[in-house]
C-alpha cells in the first residue's frame, strides 16, 4: 500500500529519537574535548623512543642513560619518506645488557613528513622505536616545532606498557630471557676462561721436565 514505507520509516525515527535519551547505542556522539573515546591498542600515530627505567649513570639523565637506541641507523635508511635524521656518537656507553653501545647524539623525526607506516618499528633490532598513540600533536610554529628531537621522543618503558600492554610485556619477557641467557653465557665464558687460565702455565714446566 502506498505510504506504508513512510510510516515504517517514521516509526523507526521515532524509536531513534526516544531511544537516544535512554540507550548509548542510539546516541553515539563523543563530545570531543571533554570526552575522548579510548584509543585501540594497536593504534599508531607517531614514533617514540623507549628508554628503560632505573639506569643510573651519574652524568646522564635517566632517559638518556636508559635509551635502547644504539644508533644503528637502520630505521633512517628504511624510512620511506626519509623523515628520521640520526647522528651517531663517537664513544660507546653500556646498555641495559651491560654491553657498550653507540648512542644517538641527534635523533630527529620530522612530524610533518612522517606517514605512520611503522616500517621503522618493524626493522628496529633493538625494540627501541615504537609507535605512540597520542594524536593531539598540533603546534603553531611551522619552522622549529615540527622537528621532534630525541628528548621529546624518549618515553619510558612503563609508558610503553600503558599504551601497548601485550607488545610491551612480550618484549620485556624476551629481554628478561635474553638477560638470563647473557648472564649464563658470561658465567660460562668466565668459567672456561678461568679453566683455561688454570691449565695454561702447566705446559712449559712439563716441557722442561720432558726435555731434560
Amino acid at each position, binding site marked *: *500500500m*502506498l*505510504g506504508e514505507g*513512510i510510516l515504517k*520509516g*517514521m516509526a*523507526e*525515527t*521515532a524509536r*531513534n*529519537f526516544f531511544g*537516544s*535519551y535512554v540507550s548509548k547505542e*542510539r*546516541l*553515539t*556522539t563523543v*563530545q570531543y574535548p571533554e570526552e575522548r573515546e579510548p584509543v585501540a591498542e594497536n593504534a599508531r600515530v607517531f614514533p617514540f623512543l623507549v628508554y628503560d627505567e632505573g639506569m643510573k649513570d651519574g652524568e646522564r639523565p635517566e632517559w638518556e642513560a636508559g635509551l635502547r637506541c644504539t644508533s644503528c641507523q637502520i630505521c633512517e635508511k628504511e624510512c620511506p619518506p626519509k623523515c628520521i635524521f640520526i647522528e651517531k656518537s663517537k664513544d660507546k656507553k653500556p646498555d641495559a645488557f651491560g654491553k657498550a653501545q653507540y648512542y644517538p647524539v641527534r635523533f630527529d623525526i620530522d612530524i610533518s613528513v612522517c606517514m605512520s607506516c611503522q616500517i621503522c618499528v618493524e626493522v628496529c633490532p633493538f625494540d627501541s622505536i615504537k609507535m605512540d598513540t597520542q594524536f593531539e600533536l598540533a603546534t603553531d610554529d611551522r619552522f622549529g616545532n615540527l622537528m621532534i628531537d630525541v628528548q621529546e621522543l624518549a618515553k619510558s618503558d612503563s609508558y610503553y606498557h600503558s599504551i601497548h600492554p601485550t607488545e610491551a610485556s612480550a618484549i620485556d619477557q624476551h629481554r628478561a630471557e635474553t638477560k638470563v641467557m647473557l648472564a649464563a653465557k658470561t658465567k660460562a665464558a668466565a668459567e672456561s676462561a678461568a679453566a683455561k687460565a688454570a691449565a695454561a702455565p702447566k705446559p712449559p714446566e712439563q716441557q722442561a721436565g720432558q726435555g731434560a
Partner: protein
Amino acid sequence: MFATLARNSDQIFILLRDWLLAFLPMMLRPYVSVLLSVVVIVCFFPALFALTVIFERKGLGRIQNRLGPNRVGPYGLLQPIADGIKSLTKEDIVPTTANGFVHFLAPVVLVVAVFMGFAVLPMGRNMVLVDMDCGLLFYFAMGASTELAVFMAGWSSRNKYSLLGAMRAVAQMISYEVILLLSGLAVVMITGSLSLPKIVEAQNHYSYGLPHWYIFTPWGLAGFVMYAIAATAETNRSPFDLPEGESELVAGYHTEYSGFKFALFFLGEYLAMFSISGLGATLFLGGWSAPFSFLTWVPSWIWFFSKLMLSIFVFIWMRGTLPRLRQDQLMNFAWKFVLPFTLFNLMVTALWRFMGDGWLRWAVCSALVAAAYVLMARVSMRRERFAPRSYRYAE
C-alpha cells in the same frame, strides 16, 4: 468561580488589549488596536521561529543519533541568538551583474506575503486580526505571492543554478498550490463559508465527548493527508526540498544571498510553515477547540498553538525520516496521484453532505475513500518501464 477564571484566561489577550486601549481617546482606538495586534504578531512569530530552529536542530540530531547544538547556552538554547548575531554581522554580498533592485526586493516580498497570511488565522476565541468573509481566499492569495518572490530571488541573482532552483521551486509550488486549494475546498463545501472563524465554530461541537473536527470524518482524513503533503511541498520542506537542497543545487534560489537577506529567507520559510500549519489546524483539526468536551476549560489559544507546534514537530520528523524526492518524481506524484485523489475526495465530500446523517454515510464514504486511495495508488504510482532515452535538443 472556576468558570470565570477559565473564561478570563481564555480571553486574557483580549482583556489586556481592551485595558490598554481604555487609556486612549475614542478616535485612536481602532487604529491602535490593529497596530497592537500587528506588533504582537510580528514579534511573537519570529520568537517562535527562534524556538523552532533550536527544536529542529536538536530534534533532527536526536533522530540522527547525535546531539544537536549544545555549546551556546544550557542545552544549546541560546543558539538562535548566536545565529541571529551571525546573520546580522555577515557581509551582504550582491553579485555585480545581479539585478540590484529585484535582488533586494525578493526577500522583502517573501516575508511580507508570509506575514500577511497570519492576519486571518483565528488563534483563539475572538482572536482573529481581521475577520473577513473571504478569509481562506485571502490566505491562498498571499500564498500565491510567495511564489513570485521565489522567482524574483532566483532570476535576479544572474546565476544559472539559482535560476534553475527558482524555476523548479515555482513549478513545484504551483502544482501543490492547486492541491492545497482543493483540499481546503472540501472543508468550505461542508461549512458553507470561506471565513475561518466560522469554520472553527462549525467544528466546535462535541458528541459523546468527542469533537466534530473534520479530520475525524473519512473525507476529512483524506483531505488532511493531502493537505499535509501539499503544505510540505509549498514550504519547500523535506522531502520536497529539491529547490533548496544543499547537496543538489548549492542552495537553489537563495545561493547568492548572504547575511540578513538569507536570514529573511530562512525566516520566511519557517513563518510559512507556521501559517500553513495554523491553517491546517483551523481547517481540519478544529482550530482553537479542545479535543475532549471535558477539556474546554483550558484556554483556546493554548490548543491552537499546541496543534501548531504538533504540526511543526511532524514536519521535523518527516525531514529526519525521508530522503529528498527528485523533481520529476514530485511532479508525477502531484499531478498523477494527489490531484486526482483530491478531486475524488471533493466528490466524496459532496456525497457526505447530501446523504443524511447516520451510519450509512460513514460506511459509504469510508469505503469510497479507501478504495480510491488503493486503486489510484496502484494505477498511477506503478514503476515505469523506461524506453531508450530520446533527446529533444541534442540531436
